[in-house]
Each structure stands twice: as structure tokens, then as C-alpha cells.
């Protein structure tokens, strides 16, 4: 978008907030899987859940510049909370999501006091340590979490006592997609608010924001807590739709994977995590079908290629292409 077409800052912000055709098309396209690939609905619901997780990471990494290698901690806390609730006899999914989001958000709020004080390598190491710490704790507390064998005996009740979770994943997909869309609306609103602008300011220049009077630490604490809540909701959805929770939900691998997805799609764009999660999960599904165990080779190559050739991710590349062709996205 060029400066001639924009009259002033207010118009520019309004132009950003307006729904574009490409966005509408994107969400319409998410309705296609049940029609086109009904046998892949289980994968599709996993993609929606992972996309939600990637969206939560985008809020802190892409929009606020807080690098985290331990984001799975909140995902895992959400998953275990929802799983344990259901195991102890309360399998109602929607309230389960909210309670799991609350638990993850609580942990996020507590840890955010530490997170807000550090940057760069120290921050990477602290988030990494936090993730590993929780994983080991969950492994040790096997009386609660089932340890290495995972949490068994989860039963999720029908949604609104009406839609039972079926074998083919129709309900699971609709459920995850609906939650993803609702949370996305919230995140979109948040990013286009003055608070969202302040976050981008923190990302661009962490020294100047306090100098112009923005409460940087308070902002970071707030967005970190919100991201933790969303990650917890994503984790809870995984627990409810698969009816099992394993230690892998908390693991370093999941934290690393979600960063990779986000970069693949493009950071600092609302759709980056969504597109990245879809591409990554589909690629993993395909490659592990070809020769299981070696798909990391291709993911690694893909990652190197993206960083070398498309530094702003797939969406950044598309935006560049659109600009070259003179199309306004």
C-alpha cells in the first residue's frame, strides 16, 4: 500500500482493520475439508488446534518480539487441566476449555513477571528452562499425570449435550475450527487496538517505548498472559478431541515445532501461524507417510530454504509477489 492512497494515519488504521476479500476467502476455505477430504478430518482438527497454538505464539513472538522456546508449557498445562477435569468426572468441553485457559493463564501471569525482565539469549534460556522444568515435573508426578504412559481415562461429553465426538472427526473439526475462529476474532481486535500498537512499538524499540511513557513491562505481562490463556485453550482442545494427554504435549519438540511453523508462515502477521501450521502439519503427514522417521530431514531443508529465501515466511513472500504484480492485497 503506497502513501498516495492513504490520506492520514486514521485512514491508514481503518484500512488495516477492514476485512479483506482474501481473509473472507481464507475462512470460507476452512469449511472445505469436510466436503473435499472427509477422511482427513482428524488431521484437519489437529491443524486447527496447532494453528491456535501458533496464533498464541505469534502474539508474543511476532507482535511483541518476545522469543520463547518453552511455549509448550502453557499448551501442556491446558491439556493436563482439561484431561484431569474430565478424568475426575467433569467432561463438559466448553467449561473445560475455559478452566484450562484459566489455569494456563494463571501460570502465564506468574511467569510473566520473570519474562518481562529479560531479553535475547537470557530470555531464550529462561523460557527453554521453564518448558523443560515443567516436562520433568510432569514426568516425575506420574501419580497425577500418568507420567511416561500419558493420561488415560478421559471422556469428553457431547458439546452442548448434543454433538457427540464421532470417529471421523466431524464434531472435532467443527469444534476446533469454531474455537479457532472465535479466538482469532479476539486476537485480531487486540492487535488493531492501541494496545496492539504499543506491543509493536515494544518489538521495534524496547528502549524508546518506556521513554515515551508506555508501561512496557505491564504490556508484556498482559500479552504474555493472554498468549498463555490461548495456548492453554489449544492444549485443552487437543486433550478433549483426542481423549488422551501425553508428556509430548509439554515437550521441547512441541515448543520448537510451533516456532518453526510460525516462521514458515510469517511472524507478525495474524495469518502467519495459521498458514504455517497447515503447511507444516500437511507436510509432516505426507513425509512421514513416505518414509517415517526421516521426515525431519525434509523439514530441516524446508526450514533452511525458508530462512535463506523467504525471510518473512510464506505470507511475506506472497505479499512481495503481490506487490510486484501491482495487486493490493
Amino acid at each position, binding site marked *: 500500500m503506497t502513501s498516495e492512497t492513504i490520506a492520514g494515519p486514521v485512514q491508514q488504521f481503518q484500512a488495516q482493520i477492514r476485512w479483506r476479500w482474501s481473509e473472507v476467502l481464507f475462512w470460507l476455505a476452512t469449511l472445505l475439508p469436510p466436503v473435499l477430504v472427509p477422511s482427513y478430518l482428524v488431521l484437519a482438527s489437529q491443524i486447527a488446534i496447532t494453528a491456535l497454538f501458533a496464533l498464541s505464539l505469534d502474539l508474543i513472538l511476532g507482535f511483541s518480539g518476545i522469543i520463547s522456546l518453552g511455549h509448550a508449557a502453557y499448551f501442556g498445562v491446558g491439556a493436563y487441566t482439561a484431561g484431569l477435569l474430565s478424568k475426575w468426572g467433569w467432561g463438559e468441553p466448553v467449561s473445560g476449555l475455559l478452566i484450562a485457559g484459566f489455569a494456563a493463564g494463571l501460570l502465564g501471569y506468574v511467569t510473566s513477571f520473570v519474562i518481562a525482565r*529479560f531479553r535475547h539469549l537470557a530470555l*531464550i*534460556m529462561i523460557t*527453554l528452562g521453564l518448558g523443560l522444568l515443567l516436562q*520433568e515435573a510432569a514426568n516425575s508426578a506420574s501419580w497425577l499425570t500418568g507420567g511416561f504412559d500419558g493420561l488415560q481415562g478421559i471422556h469428553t461429553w457431547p458439546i452442548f449435550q448434543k454433538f457427540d465426538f464421532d470417529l471421523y472427526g466431524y464434531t472435532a473439526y467443527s469444534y476446533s475450527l469454531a474455537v479457532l475462529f472465535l479466538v482469532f476474532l479476539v486476537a485480531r481486535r487486540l492487535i488493531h487496538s492501541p494496545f496492539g500498537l504499543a506491543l509493536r512499538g515494544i518489538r521495534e524499540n524496547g528502549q524508546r517505548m518506556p521513554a515515551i511513557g508506555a508501561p512496557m513491562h505491564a504490556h508484556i505481562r498482559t500479552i504474555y498472559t493472554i498468549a498463555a490463556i490461548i495456548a492453554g485453550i489449544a492444549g485443552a482442545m487437543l486433550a478433549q478431541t483426542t481423549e488422551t494427554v501425553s508428556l509430548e504435549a509439554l515437550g521441547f519438540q512441541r515448543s520448537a515445532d510451533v516456532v518453526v511453523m510460525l516462521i514458515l508462515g510469517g511472524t507478525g502477521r495474524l495469518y502467519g501461524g495459521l498458514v504455517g501450521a497447515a503447511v507444516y502439519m500437511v507436510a509432516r503427514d505426507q513425509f512421514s507417510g513416505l518414509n517415517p*522417521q526421516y521426515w525431519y*530431514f525434509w523439514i530441516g531443508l524446508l526450514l533452511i530454504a525458508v*530462512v535463506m529465501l523467504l*525471510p518473512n515466511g510464506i505470507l511475506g513472500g506472497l505479499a512481495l509477489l503481490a506487490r510486484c504484480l501491482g495487486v493490493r492485497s
Partner: protein
Amino acid sequence: MPSVFGVLFDGVAYGMLLFLLSVGLSVTLGMMNFVNLAHCSFAMLGGYVTVTLMNAFGWPFFATLPVAFIAAAAASVVLERAFFRRFYNASDLNQCLLTIGIVFVSIASAAYIYGTDEQPVQLPSYLRGSIAFLGLDFANYRLFLIATALLITILLIVTVEMTRFGAQVRAAVNNQRMARGLGINVDGLFAITFALGSGLAGLGGALAIEMVGLDPSFAFTYLIYVLIVVSVGGLGSITGSFAAAMLLGVSDMAGKYYVPAIGSVLIYLVMMVMIMWRPTGLFGRR
């Protein structure tokens, strides 16, 4: 219940190993601010070189060690020329991702060539067994490991503190731009340091096989330990890395022996407390 000295001895041997694995990363990170998460892939390469030479070609253990060093150093030079040098001015995140991509590729390649089993090595007889001294058993291999690592540490410190090359490295770590301004060829210096550091990691990987085993996940598992050593010790500080590696080695061993229930939690706790207390590391200046 093992004695305090036994645990201390094992911890020190383990710490020495961690020091060899991590010192190269500490110096290159301090110099160029390049977050090289593929550092342990070079260590893994060294390990596999030793395994291959011993098991397929019947080389003696000691003859394989220099080859492991050279192979890892050579591989690092190739990667540095081909990929890394374009990313010196890129963001932390892009550097992390590029090198994580390399880690993924190296793990999958190792799994493809060698399978996912742990690789066995047959040590020469005089490195097996142990020496009894003051009522304690000292495993020969661990004594050898400690002696080797101490020798290398002394060599490193002498090189860095007393030679012209070392002075240039210190200048570049302290202030890269100023060093450039004084006419030091920082890029060339970095390439050499990078190769040396990766070579040491390769040597560490070869020495690690007997103590911690070698399988394709090595590049990831030990990456975390190496990062802990580097961030706790402080970037670019050899003494810091040494102290942090000892601290980590001893506390990890002590945790595993005395409080096995929370043993693995303990080192992460130690790391987080250390970083919160000193965000730039024990001996870090920045």
C-alpha cells in the same frame, strides 16, 4: 549410597566433557553474536567419525581422535562459508531457525546412515577398568577424560591470554567494531575460531561416546546442556564456561545420585536461578 568424593569425581569428569562440547560455542557466540544451535551436530559428527573408523576400519581409539577433530572443523568451515556468514547481521530468531534446520538435517542423516541405536565402541584395555586409591574407585576412562580436558583448557587459556592470535580474539569478543577499526581481520579470525571451536566439539563428541553414548538424538539432547553452560558461564568467557560446566556436571550428577526423583529438574532450576541472578552469565561482561 555413593560417597561424596565418588559423585564429585564423576561430576567433574562429566563437567569436563561438557566444557569441551561448549567452549567453542561460547567463544563464537561472544565474538559474532551468532546463535549456532548446530554446534552439537559437529560434536555428533566427531562421534560418528570415531565410531566408523574404529568399527569399520579397525583404527585404534587414539588415532581416531585427531580425525574427529579435523572432520568436525572441516565441516564447520564448509557450513560457515556456505550458510552462516550470510546471517551474521540477521536477527537472533533467523539464526536460530537456520541452525535448527541444520540440526534436523544432521539428525535425520545420522538416523538414515547409522540407525537410531546407540553406537558401541571397544576401548583399549588400559582405558577400561579402574584404579583403587584411598578406598575409592577411579574409572580409568574418566581419569583420562579429565586429564585430556585439563590439558586442552590450559592450551586454550595460554593461546587466548598469551599469543597475538589470542589477543585479537579477545579484542574481537570485547568490541567487534573497534577491533575492525584497528585493522584486525575479524572475519578471518572468526572463521579460524569457528573451526577450532567446532573441532573441539567434534573431539568432545568422540570422547563422549564411552560416557554418555551416541545416537542421532545427541545433537539435540546435548544442545540443551551446552546452551546452559554457555548462558550461565557468560558469552566469550573460557573461564566462565569452565566454571559453568563444572557446576552443571557436579550438580547434575549429585542430583541424579542423591535425589533421583527430582534429579533432572534440579539442573534446570539451577540454570534458571543463575540466569535470573546474573543475566549475562557468571563471568559475562555484557
